[in-house]
């Protein structure tokens, strides 16, 4: 029997959360090694387990996989969540890259406490409701069903639900102008594996709180003051 994938990260959402979502949607049980100190991180690096000395890292199928995009695409490909042909795949890639941009911005919200919190949150939620969500609303409208691409659930749908919930944590009425997204959210949340992931006791992580922020600061090297200097470039090493 194949070993379960092992996720190496800190005990928080960060860049690993999308991986947890996708494995859950694929019905794949996994284990987690949760790092708590800089020493534990250094130890992984010294053991040569991190190709670029960075996390996330996932041990899966004999590989020590790094780079979130590589990890997500592997899981999507392996579990038939990447479309049926190249044209569906490129659509999934375009949509998920947009979602990644948005999710990278939301990842910074707890760290926005380092700068002007209200201004930062306003900037991020506006990007969500003006640039990204309208695109997915339209895609669902054109598709006429609750899948972004093709005729079946794909990674793009899983990621979209994750992002919708993230936006709503910052702005509870974020979907008020998007009826198709509301319908989508309800439909995808009901799928058995997703529903299970949304219940207490699942590997899903809560939003970062004060304690989590302090822990992350200890583990990772944050470049204060540069978080929002370049609107599409994230200068945080996570």
């Amino acid at each position, binding site marked *: 029997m194949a070993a379960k994938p092992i996720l190496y990260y800190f005990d928080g959402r960060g860049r690993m959360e999308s991986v947890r979502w996708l494995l859950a949607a694929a019905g794949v049980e996994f284990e987690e090694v949760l790092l708590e100190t800089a020493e534990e991180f250094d130890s992984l690096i010294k053991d040569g387990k991190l*190709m*670029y*000395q960075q996390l996330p890292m996932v041990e899966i*199928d004999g*590989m020590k*996989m*790094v*780079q979130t*995009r*590589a990890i997500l*695409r*592997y899981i999507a*490909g*392996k579990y038939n969540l990447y479309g049926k042909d*190249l*044209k569906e*795949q*490129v659509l999934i*890639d*375009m949509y998920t*890259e*947009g979602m990644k*941009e948005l999710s990278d911005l939301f990842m910074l919200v707890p760290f926005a406490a380092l700068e002007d919190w209200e201004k930062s949150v306003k900037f991020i939620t506006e990007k969500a409701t003006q*640039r*990204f969500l309208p*695109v997915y609303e339209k895609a669902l409208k054109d598709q006429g069903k609750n899948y972004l691409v093709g005729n079946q659930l794909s990674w793009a749908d899983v990621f979209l639900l994750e992002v919708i919930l993230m936006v709503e944590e910052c702005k509870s009425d974020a979907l008020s102008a998007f009826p198709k997204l509301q319908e989508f959210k309800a439909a995808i949340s009901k799928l058995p594996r997703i529903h299970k992931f949304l219940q207490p006791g699942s590997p899903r992580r809560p939003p970062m709180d004060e304690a989590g922020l302090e822990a992350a600061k200890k583990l990772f090297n944050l470049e204060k003051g540069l978080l929002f200097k*370049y609107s*599409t*470039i994230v*200068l945080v090493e996570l």
Partner: protein
Amino acid sequence: MANKPILHYFNGRGRMESIRWLLAAAGVEFEEQFFETKEELQKLKATVLLFQQVPMVEIDGMKLVQCRAILHYIAEKHSLLGKDLKERTLIIMYSEGTMELMELLMIYSVLTGEEQKQKLDEITNKTKNRYFPAYEKVLKTHGQNFLVGNQMSLADVQLIETILMVEEVIPDALSGFPLLQAFKTRMSNIPTIKKFLAPGSKRKPVADAKSLENIRKIFS
């Protein structure tokens, strides 16, 4: 006959350069439409850009956006993304590392003064201690000429692009990395790449101060 891909961007490297490299390496001729003013970019945003962003590439009846979506599409179409899921994943792992380094170089190019100097220190440190050792190790471990699967892939094209970009600001970047030096020589001699490196190709130069100022105006 299929239409040539059309690249929509400004006349400079930016986030389109990796796409130019890949098309060139794959031997695919392409056309470019440059926007030169804020108004021209606004028009594109209002009409054909999915997320109101560039790069955008018109190819095979689609208007593709998002660098990685574009790169992976072209790579897969031209057999530069490996022969199976595992090779593909390795290629993307390596490609993502090069893109991180190229992103730092992009930021460096728009900074000035002390900030720019600090960024260069960071790039030098990461090149010599993080990224180049990683790729040197990959080549050493399997002893092959290409990073993955004994044939050219997206990862190799992005690595040669990155090496040349790094050397523009750190001339001795490859010292201490003999396998990467040999890799650079071999890749530069591949006919399609050799052609792209010669004058008259669509490869873009480093932006000078005037171009940077113009780019700032367009995206303001």
